[in-house]
Structure formats: structure tokens, C-alpha cells
């Protein structure tokens, strides 16, 4: 079965601190079976998101995605949206940076992980693994190797091979040539040709047009989350021949044409002549007109005339960018950095004031032993958080889970065994304590967004700086805090990356947020490995910039100043805390 992809008004949003943000959409368009479509466009235009959406790895905010007659998402038994299994089995996606994402200790088991959802007989599995390894140029001896020990290029090949073994009708590939050497790229092209001949289709997001444009049928450009009309590859090539980022062969033709040299070509089948074809065409001109001006040579042009005009544009692009560079430099000469001074950093609250205020309020909230006090604290928390609600939004799920947990614990605390019954006072006591904790937690959530690592570092250095006279390594400790700040967000994003890979390869039909429990286990080891690798990279990068050098003597580029605003903030916190304590004792 299978068929063409149809996207109608498909839109994907992401939850961010500043509200729901559109990533792609509304996307309308179709990808036809038996064709290879390239997705072009700048980084961040939404190419990867579009591929992930088609593979069911992104929930649709609105619109629909369908393969042939079947919709990708369908309503499940309990009204929850589930993915259509047959669409998933027909689709194979390889995500960006597909190396270093292995779940199994052996290459052959890595294949079986991908093949598991297809429920194939053992013989067929063996056969498919062999074929896929051969097609991608992996030696069969590697079947027993640990995938982590393979070279970078081999890991890229393995990732493609795992995909091919599943024999999906559709290949969705994200930057498949990155990290591949010349031989690897030509194997990839062979694989794609065979896939197309067998009636399969492919959507490939790529920057490597030099390699992939020659085998593409169509090019679709993504711009700012929108999918522009796909055009035939030859048409696209003609229109973009002079872009600075166009394949070099196209730019050569455009440059030659600009200097008045036309290249005649017999076959129009390829997008550009091979280097030997071009050389022959050029050489023939030299032979036939040894003394004439080259401009007048060869009237019959096969290249589209549009390229002539584009040639001028290209040269002016270069001019503009150089011009711009000089322009900004001169601006700096006349007005010495207005607006950018270290003082600009101090426009927000002093972290010391924030932390002290928080500690005061938290202490007052935790002292509450009765419901009126908790109610007052909740009211106060609401008032403080209202202007900061955007920072809370990403945490909503966690808060909900925590609230449910509190209710459950309170219920259990209330259960009495002898005699069997429910003791409300016990439950209430627990509920009271945990509610206070919840409020303290809620108040703390926006803190991360309100201070920046450097400001916290400076706050620690300025507060505890005097300790360094007693050989306490204050500035190293402060720098460590900065780096921890830097590393925390990576924990979440790396987990998300591995969960996505496991979801895609395991063909899970749930929404991405809820990875089936059976898939959690294989993800943990590669996740930890990857974190260690990230930490190493970070350490390398810091060393490479001279940060944290033990012999270095760090200076201070700016100093925190306690301002009237900070004093007001602390005064407000003090008043609120006093009020809360009063409520607790008086009521």
C-alpha cells in the first residue's frame, strides 16, 4: 500500500518560557511516492521538525498528516491520540547526529532492536541484516563488534543500515551525508537510487547540495517554519546557480557565463556537466578559436538564460557583506559602545537580594501550621508569581504530578489499620506540610530565569570573597556554580534526544511525551554515556578558552551593586514574612 504524504495545515508548537511558540506550520504540501525530495533552507527553518512530525515524533497542534489513505494520528480507545502503526512501519527516519546513539552491546543486536516491531522470522532477519550491511559498505565481521567502538564514519553507516534493514517505503533522512567520507557518500547515493527504483520515496533535509542535488527529483525550501512549493531539481538549480552556497559546479557555470563563455551541452539529463565534459567543452573552444576573443564563442546556449542576471547578484552579495563589516567598524569608531557596558547587566535585581528575600519568605511559609496561614501564603505566592507566570509554564506538568503525589500521600497517611478507617487529622497534617513545601517550590521556580550564571558567580565572590584570605577557593567554587547552571539544561535536552530516538526506532504508537516503560531501560546507558561525553566536551572547550586555568588570576569585569530596587524588594519580602508569621500566631 503506502502512497503519497499529504500535509494539511499541519502546525507544531513548543512550550517555552514565553508561551507556546510556533515551530512549523501551517504546512501544506505533499511528497510523492517514487521520488526523492530535498528539503533546503537555513538552520532553524524547521526542516528537522518537519521530518520528525511526519515520523510521529512531534504532536500536531492543528492540521493533519496522512500517508496514502491513512492518517498518521488516530483516536485511540480512551480518546487519546495514538499513532497509526502501519504508517510508522512504512516510514524510517534517521535523526540528525545519528552516530553515538546505540542501545545494544553488539552491532547485530542493534539491527534486531530496529527490526523488533516488524516481527519477522529469524531467517529473514539474518538475511536483511546481511543485505543492509553490504549495501552500506559495512564489513560483515563487524556484526559482533560493539557499536561504540566503530569509527565515526562506520557509525553513520550503521545508522543508515539499521534503517534499510526495516525496508520502509519511505526514508526520512536528516543531513545523511554529514560525517561520511567520499566513498560513504557514493554508497548512500546508490542506496537511494535502488530505493527509488523499487518504488520507494524519500524526503531528505540537507545542506550538501553538491552531493544530493544530482539524484533529487524535487527541491522544497523551508523558510521560517513554512514549506514553500516544491520545484523540479533542474529548475531549482537554474534559479540558484549563483548563490554563494550553491553547488560549486553551478557557480562555475554561472561565472563562466558572466565572463561571456557559454558552455554547450549535448545531454540535459544531468544538472551540470561532469568536470571532464566541461574541460572538453572549454578545450574545444581554445582549439577552434585560438586567436579570437573567447567572448564571441559558441552561440548555442543550453544553460537557462536566467543565470546571467544572477551572476551580477552574486558578486554584489559579496560586496554587500564586506561593506557591512566595514560599516559597523566605523560606527564603533565614532560612538564608543553606547548602550553596551557592563552596567547594563546590573539592570535586574541583585541575586543576593533575590536569594535573601526568597529565604525569608520560604521560612515564613514553612512555619505555617494551620490552614488560614497556608491560605495567606498561597495568596502571596499567587501575587508574586502572577507577573512571572511565563516562567512557570514549562513546569506545569511537574507541578501537577507533585500535587497528585501530595494527595496520594495524604490519603495514605490518613488510613488507619486498627480499626480499619480513615483519620482526617492525620491526613490533614500531612497535607498541610506538603502544601507549604509546594508553595516554597513554586516560589523558587522562576529564580533560575531571573538570575544569570555570571551574576550568581559574582554574588558568591562578593559575599564570600573575604574567605579567600584564609585559602578558601572562593572563585573556583563560584565558577563551578556557573558551570553547573550551564550543564543543567543539557540533562533534559539529552534525555529528550534519546527518548526520541528510542521512540522512532521502536515504532512506539504513544505520544512522544510518554515513552513506554519497556523502552526506558535501553535508553539509560547511552544517555549516561552521552552525558559523560558532553561533560568532556565542555571541559575541553573551557580549557580551549582559558577558563578555569589553575594558574590564572581572574579579574572582575563588573561588580554587583546593591540598589534601591534591591532594598525595596527585601523590604517587601520582610513585610510579607512578618505578616505571615503574624497570621500563624494570631488566627
Amino acid at each position: 500500500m503506502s502512497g503519497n504524504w499529504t500535509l494539511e495545515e499541519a502546525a507544531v508548537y513548543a512550550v517555552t518560557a514565553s508561551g507556546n511558540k510556533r515551530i512549523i506550520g501551517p504546512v501544506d504540501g505533499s511528497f510523492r511516492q517514487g521520488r526523492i525530495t530535498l528539503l533546503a533552507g537555513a538552520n532553524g527553518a524547521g526542516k528537522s521538525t518537519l521530518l520528525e512530525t511526519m515520523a510521529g515524533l512531534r504532536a500536531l497542534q492543528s492540521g493533519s498528516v496522512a500517508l496514502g489513505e491513512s492518517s498518521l494520528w488516530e483516536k485511540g480507545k480512551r480518546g487519546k491520540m495514538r499513532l497509526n502503526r502501519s504508517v510508522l512501519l512504512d516510514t524510517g527516519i534517521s535523526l540528525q547526529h545519528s552516530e553515538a546513539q546505540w542501545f545494544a552491546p553488539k552491532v547485530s543486536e542493534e539491527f534486531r532492536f530496529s527490526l523488533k516491531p516488524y516481527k519477522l522470522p529469524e531467517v529473514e532477519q539474518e538475511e536483511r541484516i546481511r543485505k543492509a550491511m553490504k549495501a552500506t559498505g559495512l564489513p560483515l565481521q563487524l556484526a559482533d563488534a560493539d557499536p561504540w567502538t566503530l569509527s565515526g564514519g562506520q557509525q553513520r553507516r550503521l545508522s543508515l543500515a539499521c534503517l534499510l534493514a526495516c525496508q520502509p517505503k519511505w526514508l526520512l533522512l536528516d543531513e545523511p551525508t554529514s560525517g561520511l567520507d567520499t566513498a560513504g557518500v557514493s554508497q548512500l547515493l546508490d542506496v537511494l537510487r535502488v530505493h527509488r527504483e523499487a518504488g520507494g520515496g524519500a524526503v531528505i533535509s540537507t545542506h550538501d547540495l553538491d552531493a544530493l542535488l544530482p539524484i533529487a527529483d524535487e527541491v522544497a525550501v523551508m523558510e521560517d517554519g513554512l514549506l514553500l512549493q516544491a520545484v523540479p531539481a533542474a529548475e531549482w538549480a537554474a534559479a540558484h546557480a549563483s548563490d554563494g552556497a550553491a553547488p560549486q559546479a553551478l557557480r562555475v557555470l554561472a561565472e563562466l557565463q558572466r565572463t561571456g563563455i557559454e558552455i554547450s551541452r549535448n545531454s540535459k539529463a544531468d544538472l551540470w556537466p561532469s568536470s571532464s565534459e566541461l574541460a572538453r567543452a572549454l578545450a574545444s573552444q581554445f582549439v577552434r578559436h585560438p586567436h579570437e576573443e573567447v567572448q564571441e564563442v559558441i552561440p548555442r546556449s543550453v544553460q537557462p538564460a536566467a543565470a546571467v542576471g544572477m551572476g551580477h547578484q552574486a558578486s554584489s552579495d559579496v560586496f554587500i557583506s564586506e561593506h557591512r563589516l566595514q560599516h559597523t567598524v566605523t560606527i564603533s569608531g565614532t560612538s564608543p559602545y553606547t548602550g553596551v557596558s557592563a552596567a547594563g547587566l546590573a539592570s535586574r535585581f541583585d541575586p543576593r537580594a533575590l536569594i535573601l528575600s526568597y529565604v525569608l519568605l520560604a521560612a515564613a511559609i514553612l512555619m505555617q501550621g494551620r490552614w488560614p496561614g497556608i491560605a495567606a501564603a498561597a495568596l502571596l505566592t499567587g501575587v508574586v508569581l502572577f507577573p512571572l507566570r511565563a516562567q512557570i509554564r514549562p513546569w506545569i506538568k511537574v507541578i501537577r504530578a507533585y500535587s497528585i503525589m501530595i494527595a496520594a500521600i495524604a490519603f495514605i497517611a490518613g488510613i488507619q489499620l486498627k480499626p480499619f478507617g480513615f483519620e482526617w487529622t492525620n491526613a490533614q497534617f500531612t497535607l498541610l506540610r506538603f502544601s507549604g513545601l509546594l508553595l516554597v517550590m513554586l516560589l523558587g521556580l522562576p529564580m533560575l530565569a531571573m538570575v544569570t550564571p555570571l551574576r550568581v558567580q559574582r554574588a558568591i565572590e562578593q559575599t564570600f570573597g573575604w574567605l579567600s584570605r584564609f585559602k578558601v577557593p572562593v572563585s573556583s567554587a563560584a565558577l563551578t556554580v556557573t558551570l553547573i547552571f550551564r550543564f543543567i539544561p543539557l540533562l533534559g535536552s539529552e534525555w529528550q534526544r534519546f527518548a526520541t530516538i528510542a521512540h522512532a526506532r521502536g515504532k512506539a504508537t504513544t505520544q512522544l511525551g510518554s515513552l513506554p516503560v519497556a523502552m526506558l531501560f535501553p535508553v539509560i546507558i547511552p544517555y549516561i554515556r552521552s552525558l559523560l561525553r558532553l561533560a568532556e566536551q565542555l571541559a575541553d572547550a573551557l580549557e580551549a578558552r582559558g577558563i578555569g586555568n589553575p594558574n590564572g588570576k581572574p579579574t572582575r569585569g563588573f561588580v554587583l551593586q546593591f540598589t534601591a530596587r534591591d532594598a525595596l524588594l527585601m523590604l517587601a519580602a520582610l513585610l510579607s514574612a512578618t505578616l505571615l508569621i503574624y497570621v500563624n500566631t494570631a488566627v
Partner: protein
Amino acid sequence: MKTNLLLQLTGVTVRPFSAAEQEELVAILKNIHLGVEQGEWIALIGRNGSGKSTLLKLIAGFQAGEASGYLDWSDVLTARIGIKAPIVMQQPEASMVGATPLEDLIIMLEQNGVKGELIAEQAAHALVRTGMLKHAHQPVGTLSGGQKQRVAIAGCLAVEAPILLMDEPTAMLDPEAAIHVHEIVRELNRSGIAVIWITQKLDELREGDRVIALEHGEIVFNGAAEGFYDRSGGGAAESVCERLGFEAPYVVQTVWELEKLGVQLTGLPLTPAALAKAVHSR
């Protein structure tokens, strides 16, 4: 040492740290002799694992393994406070510490011991030179890969390094951003800063670049870009580029094909524009 020499490596060999005493590990770099002059552009080429990044770390003065041999810095480098020569890495994410470009630069300058009162001005000036001034206060998470690389380059400028060490800075960028970053560094090079540029993209070579090719930790070629593609020398009609298994850019392949047909162009063009000019002027 010659006066315009920035640094020199003499007979340097690097082996990975090994846990076992007896185990003789394969050297990452073998007997490297290399001088870097002020203001020159060196393209460092080699396959994955050929030792490019290790060589760069070594030049910057980091411990990259058990090294033997000599590394001589010129007075320009020796006299520097803080880092001798910072490296811009491939992963734009990896090196950013601050929450905004300006914060990132301030942290880097503080850590490198630049005087406090000079920091704001040096940071701002470096942001201007990489065209990042208008993004100085933008949260790092909202910057594109190319913009992050420009911040990293700004960091090297801000500490006033006389040499930029670039470890495949364009590998993770889209073509437009890659061209932009490349062009900015070329501009800085024209202003007199030496650059060592590791790349896998041979179309980033320009006429007059010095190419150093590494294979299995050894320098197998050290000379002008034109020589790297030269097919005439050494008996076998194969250039260093082909011997190392790299695919030459379309322009160079066309020149080779022309040579086969007996057509010699003056000089070796490396860019489409240069090829068109060379063909036209013949």
C-alpha cells in the same frame, strides 16, 4: 628564531596517556616540525583521527598527551597573560558559558586576567568586529549556530590573541552561515592575525593559503595550496589531495581535466570566479 616567526614545533611526538606501563601506544603525532609565521593562513587538512585537533591543542599549549620535543613561542606569545592562543571548536554549543554573548565574553576576559576596567570596552569591540554587537544581550539559547561561532571568535579577538586556532568551525553550520563565518575570519586574517583553519571542506582553500596535510599523525604535505593539487610532480600523476583520499573540488577537477587535454592555465584557480578569469584570459 626568525623575527616574524610566531611559534615553532621541533621534533614533537605525542602519545596518548596510557594506564599500563609496558603498553606502547601508537603515537597521535609523530616527529612534527612546523613553524607558524605572523599573519599567515594555514589550512590544516586530514581525515578523522589523523591528529589535527591534537596538533591544534599542542600549539595552544595544552597537555594533549605524553609529548616530547620542543615548542617555542615567540615573545609575542610568551609575554601574554592568560591563554596563549584560544581555540574555536566545532560544536557551537560546547564553549558558551555565559547567558548572553556579552556575559560570555566578560567571563572569558575575567578568567584570562584582563584588567577589570578594560573588559567592557574590549568585549564590545570584539563583538563589533564579528558583527554581533546588536545581539550582545540576546539569550544564548536564541542564537543560531553561526552566531554562536561568531561569539566564540569574538572571545579570541577580545583576549587579543595574535593567532586564531579554528577546529572545523564551519562543520556544523548551514552553507550561508559557513560562508559568513569564513569571510569574517578571512577579513581578520587580512588585518594581520594568523589563522590555523582545520577543515574537511576543500572548497574553503584559497590561492596563497599554506596547506598542511596530516596522515596517521605525520605531516605528509606542507606547502602552497597549488602544490597540494599539483599532479605533475613525483612521477606518479597523482596529487597529494588524491593520495589522501580527498575529493578535489569541481574547479580543481576541471583544471585537471583541462591539463589532460593539453590545456595549461596560468596558476591554479581554486574558486569558480578564479577559474572563469583564468579561462577568459587565456
